[in-house]
């Protein structure tokens, strides 16, 4: 018995290195590699079409995927091979197999890639848009690297199943591994050793895929990539910094410009819901305006309209004398421009979000230099130098190489501030920058904002921090139900509110000050 087993093993091994079977393996591998490579490229296109708001494109992609996924590849191959010749298109076996599997893989890869893309938080896209990053730049630099973690395991599964799945191509005369092993069995009936040998060869081929998957997963794992710890940069004493130089304020606060930001009769609705019902607001250069008001009053929406993250339905907004991303038609109507990302980049409006929205796969410093290098084409070394100084200024010199999830909420928000400052903004928008923070972390973020205010940055801050508003704001605007209810100096609005709604709101949020 023992010697028989040894004989079987030896026979299996000798079959597994037979040129006849290895040629079949090569055929399977060639088809699979081309099909997966081309399938990924086509699949990316299909995935984007499927995600597109352009209905015909998404409908086409849906139909294609539905059809290719829903019909057996064996029948598709026979169709391509045997039904096209009467129509005058005669493809050879290999071409047919490559074409058939590619068309099929495109459908499967499209869904894998789409799954990866939608697994990435949508707020990442919003943050990129606020930095002036264009759609494809965002896709390439922000979305896909994060999507890879979801895409890779599924893609490896798919690649392995294609390598094995090429066996069905024997029906169109591709002499791949399984068919060749069947032919040997048809001649000598030694199915056990021959099929074991074929299995061994498949295992070797699929192991290569598994290895590649492991390598790529490590490459796209930001944790592993960043094992190297850069030398920490000592935090500079914030007071010692010259914030005015640092934030690169384009014009000193002394220059009087009462109409740096002008909103005229601004309207915005989401479906039937009217969010803004005619906002008129002017912000002077160097002025710090704090917007307060109950949730749903339209504060955040107003900020998103100012840097054109969303279109204005009615009225107009002018920043530094220009419409951000609108062009006037001959009849005076305003139309959004085609290249909105470029318009946003040119406007240089920095934005800080309630939920930080840092790019999760990039370190603190990489978050900060992303837009200067990728959008504004700055020299990377210079951008990094300035990035380190900005991070030091917000007290994060020791954390430049840390990934966002390693940082506390307050630290993340300070990185977000440094990131917004890195593009030398003319105007800063803060959308409830401390609302998501634990109370003890609020102070560090407000300190950074205070420094900017003192350095002369023009800012619009949506916040509920009454004490901060009192200290920093030149003017407080109180909004409710899509309208400005009242506005004026902090003393006027906070201490002697005229409107009943303002009074009621202030009574609700007044609480013992913590900072």
């Amino acid at each position, binding site marked *: 018995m023992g010697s028989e087993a040894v004989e079987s093993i030896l026979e299996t091994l000798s079959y597994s290195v037979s040129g006849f079977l290895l040629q079949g393996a090569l055929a399977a591998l060639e088809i699979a590699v081309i099909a997966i490579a081309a399938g990924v490229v086509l699949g990316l296109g299909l995935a984007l079409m499927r995600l597109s708001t352009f209905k015909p494109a998404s409908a086409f992609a849906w139909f294609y995927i539905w059809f290719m996924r829903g019909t057996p590849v064996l029948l598709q191959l026979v169709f391509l091979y*045997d039904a096209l*010749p009467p129509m005058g298109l005669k493809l050879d076996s290999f071409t047919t197999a490559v074409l058939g599997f590619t068309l099929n893989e495109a459908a499967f890869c499209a869904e894998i890639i789409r799954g990866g893309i939608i697994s990435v938080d949508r707020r990442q896209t919003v943050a990129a848009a606020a930095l002036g990053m264009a759609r494809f730049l965002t896709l390439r630099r922000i979305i896909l690297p994060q999507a890879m973690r979801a895409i890779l395991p599924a893609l490896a599964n798919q690649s392995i199943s294609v390598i094995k799945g090429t066996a069905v191509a024997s029906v169109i*005369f591709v002499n791949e591994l399984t*068919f060749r092993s069947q032919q040997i*069995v*048809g001649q000598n*009936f030694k199915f056990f050793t021959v099929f074991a040998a074929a299995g061994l060869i498949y295992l070797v081929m699929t192991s290569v895929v598994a290895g590649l998957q492991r390598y790529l997963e490590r490459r796209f794992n930001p944790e592993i990539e960043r094992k190297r710890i850069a030398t920490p940069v000592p935090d500079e004493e914030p007071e010692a910094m010259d914030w005015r130089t640092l934030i690169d304020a384009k014009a000193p606060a002394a220059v009087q410009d009462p109409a740096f930001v002008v909103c005229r009769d601004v309207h915005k609705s989401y479906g039937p819901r009217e969010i803004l019902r005619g906002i008129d607001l002017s912000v002077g250069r160097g002025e710090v305006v704090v917007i307060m008001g109950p949730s749903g009053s339209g504060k955040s929406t107003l900020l998103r309209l100012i840097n054109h993250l969303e279109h204005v339905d009615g009225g107009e907004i002018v920043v530094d004398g220009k419409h951000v991303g609108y062009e006037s038609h001959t009849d005076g109507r305003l139309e959004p421009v085609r290249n909105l990302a470029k318009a946003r980049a040119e406007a240089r409006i920095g934005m800080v979000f309630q939920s930080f929205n840092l790019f999760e796969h990039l370190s603190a410093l990489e978050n900060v230099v992303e837009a200067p290098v990728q959008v504004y084409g700055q020299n990377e070394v210079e951008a990094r130098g300035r990035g380190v100084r900005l991070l030091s200024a917000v007290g994060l010199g020791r954390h430049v190489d840390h990934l966002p999830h390693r940082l506390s909420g307050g630290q993340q928000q300070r990185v977000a501030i440094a990131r917004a400052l890195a593009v030398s903004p003319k105007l800063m928008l803060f959308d409830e920058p401390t609302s998501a923070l634990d109370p003890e972390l609020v102070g560090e973020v407000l300190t950074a904002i205070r420094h900017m205010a003192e350095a002369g940055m023009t800012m619009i801050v949506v916040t509920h921090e009454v004490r901060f508003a009192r200290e920093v704001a030149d003017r407080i605007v109180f909004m409710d139900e899509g309208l400005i209810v009242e506005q004026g100096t902090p003393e006027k609005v906070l201490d002697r509110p005229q409107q009943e709604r303002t009074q009621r709101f202030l009574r609700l949020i007044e609480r013992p000050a913590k900072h």
Partner: protein
Amino acid sequence: MRLRHAIGACALAVLFTVAQTSAYAAPACEPENLATKYPKLAGKKLKIGQDGESAPFSHRDPKDFNHLIGLDADMARAAFACIGVPIEFTTGAWSGLIPAAMSGQIDVMWDTLLYTPERAKRMDFVAYMNSATAIIVPKGNPKKIKVVTDMCGLTGTANLGTTQEAMLREGSEKCVAAGKKPIEIVTSTDMPAGLRLVLNSRADASLTNKFVGDIAAQTTPAIEVAAGIVTGARIAVGTAKGNDDLVKAIADALTVLKANGEMKKIYEANKVDYDLVTEPEILTK
């Protein structure tokens, strides 16, 4: 005497004429006359489709897997050498051969293809032998199977879509008509798979082409051929419709090979029963 001479002379003349005529009628291999005999084949290289996995008809040479041998491979080589057209073998799964022949992806399917009137609507055939079926059982034939109707209540296997499958279904109906249990029919994708069902006692018998079964029994000691049945079905070479020169050339070549004894040699070399050979016949309906 004169009369006898005259009769003798006449007889000689008749004999001579007959000899002349028969010498003229008997076709010969004239590869050099390809262009005049079959003008449409001139300058072509034909693709011969085979599956390469059914000994003794089309299978891999154990000494060199890259070489195709077997009755069908040898017959195709001999026939097209006689015609004078170069060929190449294209191997693929049997189920893909018929659609490929119909669509012209291969020029000729030469792979134990059975002629049926249904298939003749889409293909032309040159039939040249009768088909026979073997009943493969475990060594010693424990269930004592001699004919298909011995399998009532037992499990039988055959390749999907073959005459053997039809034979099992017909036998099963006879079982039921005789008040017995039907045959449990399991279809296989290829012959070795059916053989494995018998080896693993998942099926009591496997019906397959007689010669394929004979070879299998020689190489696999655990089985035997319980019975051989000549079915009357006709094995043929198939081509797409509309290749009149090609069909005629194949029929002519097979006639020559049968007449000059070369066909018999090929059958003997591949251990296939030469008695099954019939006169080549073109079947287009």
